[in-house]
């Protein structure tokens, strides 16, 4: 580990903390439906959109209605993308003449992009036509991100409102988030990327002569615009198969830093928005503190392990840290940081191959996802997932102050506890259940590239990434088979919507409750004690469940590596 490495990591966090309040304020304006400076230009667009689609943005919805509209909207989008991918061969915008996708791959991909997972069972440039990329996939990059933020707003309203029957309007939330946040941010971001050398063109292939005099075909395309929303919306689906390790996606050290920052930007801001929404910004900072503690702990382990390198290779005379699968341009610190950022947030973009990390270095990305992507997390999804844990924590420990547990002025009772546990149980059920199944079935066992515990890690990582809607791949696993495509598709679907629906039900239940004013006798949900408690409960309830699987995967892998054993 080097000073420069740590300076990068801590500087990265410091920049984000400085950006938290400004971003949070902007998000708060959208949450409240207030005017922003952008309304001067985009206000008419928003209003004409409502007029065209016959939506009354003031019409409040109950949680059931909000959930129903969200589900129908997502189901329609998914069906649309499925159709586009299947019909790719007969649709225009296909200069390479690529055929339509198989049903299982189309199913997997449609779910993947609808759920903000962006798991790619295929190689981007060699499977998707330009039309499929733009119409079928990029649309989700915006809408799945906007859905996540809208849902977070709905839950915030549950906490903030008093004896209310409604939690907002899904369509208004979607429109405002897309129009006033994602689009403008992406336009500016795209321009920055273009200036840094990222291609943005409709031209397909460019033939060049290399220094050796050989002919090489370079694939170009609208990369910069896809790159912007891929990061901002924690989508992670790259234009190129190599993702952010590809020099056309991520050309410089500066773009690398900005890419990492942009993954966390909205997630950090939303914690502040939550605090503001419930009338005490310290509540937001406390959540951010707990997230940051978990994040930095993860970065420390991964960076330390990657910098320490592999003793087996050391014995063979290769000194230094683990550089396998990493871009020399970025080095160990920036790769380790990127991997933890992208898995902490449910982004899934990669600038290095996680499969090539040391066992424990690669375990942290895995563990981050198993916690349910609550360490900053995907846009919106991170904070609503975290709040489920907060509800659980308040309930387990809150009784110790001798009162019925309360969180930000709302009593936590059996309905909230039931729904929160239900949502949290989805993670182990789907991750462990499917991983266990695949460890036994022939179709499952055909997937992993490696033998021994590392092969098991590959299976575990795939399902973890899918259920947590991360989308990063451990590589190594041959996932483009009917078995894995169907199963991973179901995992992504359940991992997204079986958490969202109980979460919205909690929002509805909380909104209807009366407000309990805070007093000296209330359970303190700001301050170091609370932060420590949150971290403890997340690790024990969220993390310990996965210890047996981790023991047989990365931990066994690591111990074998120390003993010089390879598989």
């Amino acid at each position, binding site marked *: 580990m080097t000073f420069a490495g740590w300076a990068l990591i801590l500087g990265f966090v410091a920049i984000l903390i400085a950006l938290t309040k400004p971003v949070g304020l902007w998000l708060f304006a959208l949450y409240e439906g207030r005017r922003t400076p952008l309304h001067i230009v985009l206000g008419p667009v928003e209003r004409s959109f409502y007029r065209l689609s016959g939506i009354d943005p003031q019409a409040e919805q109950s949680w059931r209605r909000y959930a129903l509209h969200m589900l129908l909207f997502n189901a329609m989008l998914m069906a649309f993308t499925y159709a586009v991918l299947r019909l790719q061969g007969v649709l225009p915008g296909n200069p390479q003449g690529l055929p339509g996708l198989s049903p299982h791959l189309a199913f997997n991909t449609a779910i993947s992009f609808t759920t903000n997972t962006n798991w790619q069972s295929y190689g981007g440039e060699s499977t998707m036509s330009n039309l499929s990329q733009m119409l079928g996939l990029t649309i989700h990059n915006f809408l799945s991100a906007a859905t996540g933020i809208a849902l977070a707003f709905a839950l915030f309203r549950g906490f903030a409102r008093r004896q209310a029957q409604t939690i907002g309007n899904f369509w208004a939330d979607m429109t405002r988030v897309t129009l006033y946040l994602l689009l403008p941010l992406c336009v500016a971001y795209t321009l920055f990327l273009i200036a840094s050398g990222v291609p943005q063109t409709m031209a397909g292939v460019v033939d060049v002569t290399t220094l050796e005099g050989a002919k090489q075909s370079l694939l170009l395309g609208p990369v910069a615009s896809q790159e912007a929303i891929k990061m901002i919306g924690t989508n992670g689906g790259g234009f190129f198969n190599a993702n952010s390790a590809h020099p056309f996606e991520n050309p410089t050290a500066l773009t690398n830093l900005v890419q990492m920052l942009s993954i966390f930007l909205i997630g950090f801001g939303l914690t502040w928005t939550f605090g503001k929404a419930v009338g005490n910004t310290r509540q937001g900072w406390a959540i951010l503190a707990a997230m940051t503690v978990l994040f930095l702990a993860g970065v420390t382990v991964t960076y330390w392990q990657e910098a320490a390198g592999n003793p087996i290779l050391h014995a063979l005379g290769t000194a230094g840290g683990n550089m396998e699968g990493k871009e020399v341009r970025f080095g160990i610190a920036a790769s380790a940081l990127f991997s933890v950022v992208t898995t902490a947030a449910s982004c899934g973009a990669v600038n290095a191959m996680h499969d090539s990390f040391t066992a424990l270095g690669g375990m942290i990305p895995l563990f981050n996802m198993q916690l349910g992507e609550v360490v900053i997390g995907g846009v919106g999804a991170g904070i609503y997932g975290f709040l489920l844990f907060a509800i659980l924590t308040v309930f387990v420990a809150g009784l*110790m102050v*001798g*009162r019925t547990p309360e969180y930000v002025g709302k009593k936590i009772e059996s309905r909230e*506890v039931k729904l929160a546990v239900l949502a949290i149980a989805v993670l182990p059920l789907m991750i462990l259940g499917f991983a266990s199944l695949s*460890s036994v079935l022939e179709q499952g066992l055909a997937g992993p590239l490696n033998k021994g515990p590392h092969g098991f890690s590959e299976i575990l990582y795939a399902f973890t990434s899918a259920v947590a809607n991360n989308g990063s791949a451990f590589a190594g696993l041959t996932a483009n088979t009917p078995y894995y495509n169907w199963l991973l598709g179901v995992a992504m679907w359940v991992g997204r919507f079986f958490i969202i629906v109980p979460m919205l039900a909690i929002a509805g239940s909380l909104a209807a409750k009366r407000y*309990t*004013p805070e007093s000296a*006798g209330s359970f303190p949900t700001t301050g170091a004690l609370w932060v420590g408690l949150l971290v403890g409960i997340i690790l024990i309830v969220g993390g310990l469940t996965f210890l047996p699987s981790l023991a047989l995967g990365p931990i*066994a892998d690591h111990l074998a590596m*120390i003993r010089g054993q390879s598989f």
Partner: protein
Amino acid sequence: MAKTQSKSLFTADLVVPAIKASFVKLNPAELIRNPVMFVTAAVAALMTILLVVGQDDLTTGFKLQLVVWLWLTVLFGTFAEALAEGRGKAQAASLRAAKAELIAKRLIGDGPHHDSVPASQLKIGDIVLVETGDLIPSDGEVVAGVASVNEAAITGESAPVIREAGGDRSAVTAGTRVISDEIRVKVTVEPGKGFLDRMIALVEGAERQKTPNEVALTLLLVGLTIIFLIAVATVPGFASYAGGSIPVAVLAALLITLIPTTIAALLSAIGIAGMDRLVRFNVLAKSGRAVEAAGDVDVLLLDKTGTITIGDRQASEFRAVGGASEAELAEAALLASLADETPEGRSIVVLAKDRFALQRTMPADAEVIPFTAQTRVSGIRIGDALIQKGAVDSILRAHPGSGETAAATELRRVTDEIARAGGTPLAVAHNGRLLGAIFLKDVVKAGIRERFGELRAMGIRTVMITGDNPLTAAAIAAEAGVDDFLAQATPEDKLALIRKEQQGGKLVAMCGDGTNDAPALAQADVGVAMNTGTQAAREAGNMVDLDSDPTKLIEVVGLGKQLLMTRGALTTFSVANDVAKYFAIIPAMFVALYPGLGVLNVMGLATPESAILSAIIFNALIIPLLVPLALKGVAYRPMAAGPLLARNLAVYGLGGLIAPFIGIKIIDLLVGGLGLA
């Protein structure tokens, strides 16, 4: 049910029946009420079957021990519940004795004749005659007569209380004994639904229903059980990838140690013991919900008299007016109070003696004028001298025209001063001439200011309720250190205040005794009715204080908090325990697959079998070890939530993390030393 009853937890007469009951409670129909323990029992049953028919590499001795400890885990849980119930049953038995064989003298028509019927045949509306020495056959209301009643059977207090028709002292309870005079009682409850019946049911736990908080906690425990069930059920698949298999017995051990058996086993015992503590405190809660609500209370409405001030006012000063000397006033006041046996009257005599060394005995020709509700004036006539004392307005009314004198103006000024200082003025007149006022001082109870300070630290606001005028009320409120006061309070004012606080999301507790308190008692989240109060008040409140001590409201809040804290502490302890158990069982389970995983055996447990056995033994033994804590409740001191959480978290969170590491290691050494595995 004596007040001072504080039996040791583990006496033979409680433990033996509890052991028997703990086996009876294995009945699946009853066990299903506690899903975590039901799962534990199901696993134990499965393991018992596998012991006979199962095929694996484990020794029978190991599996047998495992099965025994699994069953013990369940039995310890049922034992904890049985023990908690047993303590209540002992109290119920003494209550039953009071209820046995009640015979009623039922009046025929309007009397005077009556017939004798068993109390169980009485109907609502019947009038019964109760004479000296009789047990009152049914709960009811005195419609005629006045009697002194010994209520020791329910309150444990042997001093008799007065019960009379009309007013706020009219309610009588079945099973209590009339020790003088006779009364006629109108039956107000159906047989079997009376106060005593309810009390028996309550202390026995027969009608126990899960409280909202218990329901929520049970749901959490079920959720955790499901999560851990998933974690354990998927292990065989993972193991098969690694080319091995895990015996069912080991999986069963992992499951049982991970699911929150500790808190699940003790949950109902905590609830029963919480109610029991309240009963021992001579407060009856009509539901567990009320006890929990007590812990949540934000505002306490406290009656001034008896709670904040000692019930009796004390004379502290003589204020002469209209040219009368202080000594003249003191002598007149003394004479007027000679026959006054109230504490206030006696305090006047004492003050006159202390201040002016006055010593008087009742003159032979004196005629005492008693206090009546009509005149509201008392006094004495000695020869042609009439000396009267009473409320200022009453004295002035008794002597028409005296209100216009200069002395009256001065008296009004003096009485205002007294009121502003928190006192009650009592005017004295000699043959209609106003001599002055006696300053009756409300004496704030010693230490009450500090208690209000504690309550404030806990985030609870105190509001003093008094019939006094605002001036007096403000002075006493300041002296006692309450946060707010409601002066010249009518029942409607009280009700309005409670509604207002509740609108703001606050939970309100109050106590009251009169019929006109009933609406407020019913509206309050916690309403403690005094046992001496009316039947209406007793019905409206959700708790009844058998000692009729309004100060207890503060303790009731403490008991409610203690109940919730005990649940929270043991839940946290139970969840924190899992870390050590993982580190005991996972290496033991997987070391055969990947020998390297032996490094996870941080406790250095001897063998895989011993590690598994030690974890399951610890998991079982921790239940009886925590039974005393569950029954007595965690230590409770009033303090703010922040420090309280820090303290409990250090003890039960950190303790729960560390204790099993030490406990399992010690058990492992014993298991190894005894050659059990």
